[in-house]
């Protein structure tokens, strides 16, 4: 099973003076267990797109298929609860959604809503807290006493606790320090690999696209402009500039090296790829061999 968008259109506040197009004829396939990055400038429809994945928004026309669930304009809200559990959704600045008296209660809130009994929900919460790396001693504290980074972890644990099969992340590392950012991305990568979660990541960090994603989707004005492996997206530098997108750090460095006479048969996206290709060229350049 996979996630497919079939001619999906979405209009905000349809039939009103404030109507605005959100999505225009989106066709897309995200294979099971894939790691998809969604990029595009602000207001390009990225967040609108991902909110279709768990039925928070329903297409104005067209059809979204998420594994066993089919979503059309006529799908009733009553049938969405299973979909909400199946697709875990981490919103931008998710720490704003915390509300309960203790961290563990807040994390268990999702599982309780999805019908697990108190004990099971508690166990699921403790497990999720461990997954996101929260120390045991914060579990009984109020979420509002924690630091910003820890609050973010609690919020993400609250989504993971319901054990979703698809994980949607809307800029999960925005506003975090570099180390926190790296830890968090590695945690998602680990979940993706160990539990074969399908991950959909909305991001402005091209390094994250290069390092983690196996598929990238470029959005612009509510349309899918390009979809494919990150390598194919970044291979056309002029096009990338035209879309007001950026390159991964390694790629930018590679462009500078190209001007100094280096050549790459494949555009390096990650530090590893850059280092590998440089290692092949360096001995030849200084003429001494290895």
């Amino acid at each position, binding site marked *: 099973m996979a996630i497919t968008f079939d001619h999906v259109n979405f209009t*905000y*506040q349809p039939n*009103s*003076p*404030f109507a605005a197009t959100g999505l225009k004829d989106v066709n897309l396939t995200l294979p099971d267990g894939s790691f998809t990055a969604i990029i595009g400038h602000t207001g390009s429809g990225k967040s609108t797109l991902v*909110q279709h994945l*768990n039925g*928070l928004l329903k297409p104005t026309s067209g059809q979204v298929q998420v594994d066993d669930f089919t979503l059309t304009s006529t799908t009733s*809200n*009553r049938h969405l*609860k299973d979909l*909400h*559990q199946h*697709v*875990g*959704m981490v*919103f*931008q600045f*998710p720490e*704003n*959604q*915390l*509300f*309960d008296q203790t961290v563990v209660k807040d994390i268990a*809130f*999702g599982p*309780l*809503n*999805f019908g697990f009994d108190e004990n099971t929900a508690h166990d699921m919460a403790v497990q999720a807290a461990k997954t996101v790396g929260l120390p045991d001693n914060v579990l009984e504290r109020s979420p*509002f006493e924690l630091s910003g980074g820890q609050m973010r972890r609690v919020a993400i644990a*609250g*989504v993971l606790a*319901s054990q979703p099969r698809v994980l949607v992340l809307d800029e999960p590392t925005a506003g975090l320090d570099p180390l926190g950012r790296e830890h968090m991305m590695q945690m998602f990568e680990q979940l993706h690999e160990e539990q074969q979660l399908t991950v959909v990541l909305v991001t402005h960090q091209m390094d994250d696209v290069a390092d983690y994603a196996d598929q990238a989707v470029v959005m612009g004005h509510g349309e899918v402009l390009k979809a494919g492996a990150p390598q194919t997206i970044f291979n056309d530098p002029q096009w990338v500039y035209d879309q007001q997108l950026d390159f991964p750090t390694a790629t930018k460095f590679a462009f500078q090296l190209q001007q100094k006479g280096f050549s790459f048969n494949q555009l390096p996206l990650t530090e590893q790829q850059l280092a590998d290709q440089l290692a092949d060229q360096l001995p030849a350049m200084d003429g001494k061999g290895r």
Partner: protein
Amino acid sequence: MLEQLTLGRYVPGQSILHRLDSRAKLLLSLYLIVIVFLTSNWLTYVFMFILVGGLIAMTGLKVGYFIRGIGPLIWLIVFTAVLQLLFTPGGHVYWHWGVLMLTSTGIATAVSVFLRFLLIITMATILTLTTAPLAIADGVEAMLKPLRIVHFPVAQTALMLSVALRFVPTLLDEATTIMNAQRARGVEFNNGGLIKRLRAIVPLLIPLFVGAISRADELATAMEARGYQGGDGRTKYRVLHWRSADTMAVISVLIINIVLVVFRHLN
């Protein structure tokens, strides 16, 4: 759900009504709403409806906006009118059952309550659709100025009003986001009985309050850092201008008032 409310929204435009001084517009709208109660016979009602229709035409906006503005309130109006209809004694009694009765006075009161409500809401909608929220805040500040004599904190009230208006859309956005986030965690806001629905609001209200408090804190710090020391002694960036059109508007409303009084006594 929240987005569908047209009441209280501003639609930018270039009509005469859009360009009127906000002080004049506020004052005249209030005045027009008060003189709606001068209506008594069919002549006055016809006159007021023609007037409101003319005002709508002057805004240059689609009639649909106004109809949508009244939409959410129509049940309240109908409810009030029906109460008047069934519980007003007096005049000729057509039918009665227990405390319920249908009388000629009742019918007359119900019709006039319905029509007056309709007129008032339409006029309020004309005001909000053609006046930017900040202009309304400026207008209110100007109108409160005389209260300085009794040591009423005019500047502070005006500041609170404009900050509140500025953050209405932000808070609405935030409420929608939190609502979506909690729905994604399995909360059902539109399902179940009264108790269940009330409980579902807690995970929405607490984050909203916490967010509002921390936002207020940050805003206060940012304002102090920019040299805000209280309302008095500040100069104004947006200065209101009274033009001849505004004087004309005042005169026309006074004429309307006189015509209404005359029509009222014609029967």
